[in-house]
């Protein structure tokens, strides 16, 4: 994964040896380290449609190519499905979370994606899903697509824009809230085979996907291309995390045990520390439920010695103790 936040080759040297206490859950070694994460700005929107099919079409399209802020400017994903009783207009809906490094980028990406992926999608409407610390434009500028035929309606201090389109009206709220959030929470899973690490990650992703206020922005929630900072090629700022590549086992930099055949990462963005704590705990629990018997060797986190961000998620604290 081309992410600078998962990059440091030398991170193991930053962890004092005395901290390497044993913690095993169902035979899976939990490394005594922390996953490092950084502040982001996040917003939530609610997309509704005539049915889930069309609401999901819009949500999936607008969260496409939104895996990493490095290449995509924004990280986005579907948070969950919403029942008719949970949406402003009483139709089936999808909650979408978007994360960016700053408010301006978040707003620009949101508008571009709403304009190209939701406005265009038959029967959909879009609403604010967050009160937040401040407001960013949702339909505020999109309304000009109405070419003067747009009208607004203010209900309960919320302004909605009604833009005439070929299937009737596209209804969108003028603004949505945004708040400080956290990006880059992560877990790294080591297993004896590719199929076993996939199985473990899928179990963790399923468990975490049940939770509100988080998304797993990478394809299917998993990441195979962890990266390190820098490259032998001067034009590249990041390159494959070769210490974790199983086909390079035995080389001096490689840190994998000989019985580890594959490593997979799960990246988590969340609205608060508590949300990430809970998600990581559920993820680790799901992986450890499979246990060493299913080939899971170890779980660790992306630790960069505090250089990446102020949020440190200590795996053993998350799991509630030094040893189990």
């Amino acid at each position: 994964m081309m992410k600078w936040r998962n990059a440091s080759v030398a991170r193991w040297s930053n962890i004092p040896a005395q901290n390497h206490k044993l913690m095993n859950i169902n035979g899976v070694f939990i490394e005594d380290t922390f996953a490092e994460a950084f502040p982001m700005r996040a917003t939530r929107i609610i997309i509704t449609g005539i049915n889930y099919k069309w609401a999901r079409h819009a949500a999936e399209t607008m969260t496409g190519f939104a895996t990493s802020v490095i290449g995509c400017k924004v990280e986005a994903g579907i948070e969950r499905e919403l029942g008719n009783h949970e949406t402003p207009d009483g139709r089936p809906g999808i909650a979408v979370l978007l994360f960016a490094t700053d408010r301006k980028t978040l707003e620009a990406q949101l508008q571009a994606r709403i304009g190209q992926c939701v406005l265009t999608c038959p029967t959909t409407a879009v609403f604010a899903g967050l009160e937040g610390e401040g407001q960013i434009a949702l339909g505020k500028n999109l309304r000009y697509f109405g070419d003067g035929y747009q009208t607004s309606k203010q209900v309960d201090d919320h302004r909605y824009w009604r833009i005439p389109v070929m299937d009737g009206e596209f209804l969108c709220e003028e603004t949505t809230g945004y708040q400080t959030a956290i990006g880059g929470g992560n877990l790294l899973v080591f297993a004896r085979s590719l199929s076993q690490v996939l199985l473990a990650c899928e179990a963790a992703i399923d468990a975490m996907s049940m939770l509100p206020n988080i998304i797993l922005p990478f394809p299917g929630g998993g990441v195979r291309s962890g990266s390190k900072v820098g490259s032998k090629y001067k034009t590249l700022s990041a390159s494959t995390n070769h210490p974790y590549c199983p086909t390079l086992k035995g080389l001096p930099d490689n840190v994998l045990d000989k019985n580890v055949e594959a490593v997979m990462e799960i990246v988590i963005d969340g609205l608060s520390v508590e949300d990430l704590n809970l998600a990581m705990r559920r993820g680790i629990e799901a992986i450890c439920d499979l246990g060493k018997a299913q080939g899971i060797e170890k779980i660790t986190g992306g630790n960069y010695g505090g250089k990446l961000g102020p949020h440190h998620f200590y795996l053993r604290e998350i799991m509630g103790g030094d040893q189990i």
Partner: protein
Amino acid sequence: MSATTIEYKGSGDHRVDMHWLQQALEQDLSPKEISKSTLKLGSEQVLLGDVFSIDGKLSASELSLKNSSNRLDYVGIGLPSDKTLLVEGDCGHYLGQQLAGGRLICNGSALHYAGCNMQTGSIEIMSNAGDYVGGSIAGNKRGMAGGRLLIHGNSGDFTGDLMRRGLLMVAGNIGDHCGNRMIAGTITSMGSVGKNAGNGMRRGTLLFPSKPASMATGFNDCGRHSLGFLPLLMRDIRAPESAFQALHPMRRRVQRYLGDASVDGQGEVLIWIG
């Protein structure tokens, strides 16, 4: 804190200007000071204490106007957001004019210009209201600018004249020229609507259960539609206890008329169907 009571003692055939209450609230006058101030009745100056008796302090959040009459004009004018005024009886003209966030409940009827130029807050009239409800006083370019005005009975002609924003709900019937020169906002009714609805309408929504007796000639039939904003609006409409609660909260199917084209307007008259 218990409600402060203001009792109207009578003023013969003279109309009473209730601006004094707004001034007393702004200046936080004591009942004694109010009683000693003067009030103009016709061509005479009288002591306010001769016309009203006040029990309690005006700093109370809830005020009650007892024995009210349709001779009392400007009741609740500019009522601020921290005040509730309960009016027992009828009111004269200009009830709740320029309401500034307060809550005004009149358990009788009101004459003309109720809620005109109101800004925010809510007015509830338990019986009927006269002409120019939610409208504008002569000379102003904009009428009601926000808040909710609910009339449980009927309203007269020119309901919502020059209305700019807010929600005007009439549980009964509405007279002629409803939404005349309307700029924006929403007017809805559960009864019938008279002639020439939407004349000169620029924007805004008129939402009725049946077609008005006649609409301005500049309206075009846009056909039948399911409009997504209506369930949102229904939350507002169904919020207070009224006949409107009989409407289904998810109702959204309407016949739409767009106008008034004579002023290049994009107002709409929506008629519930289905």
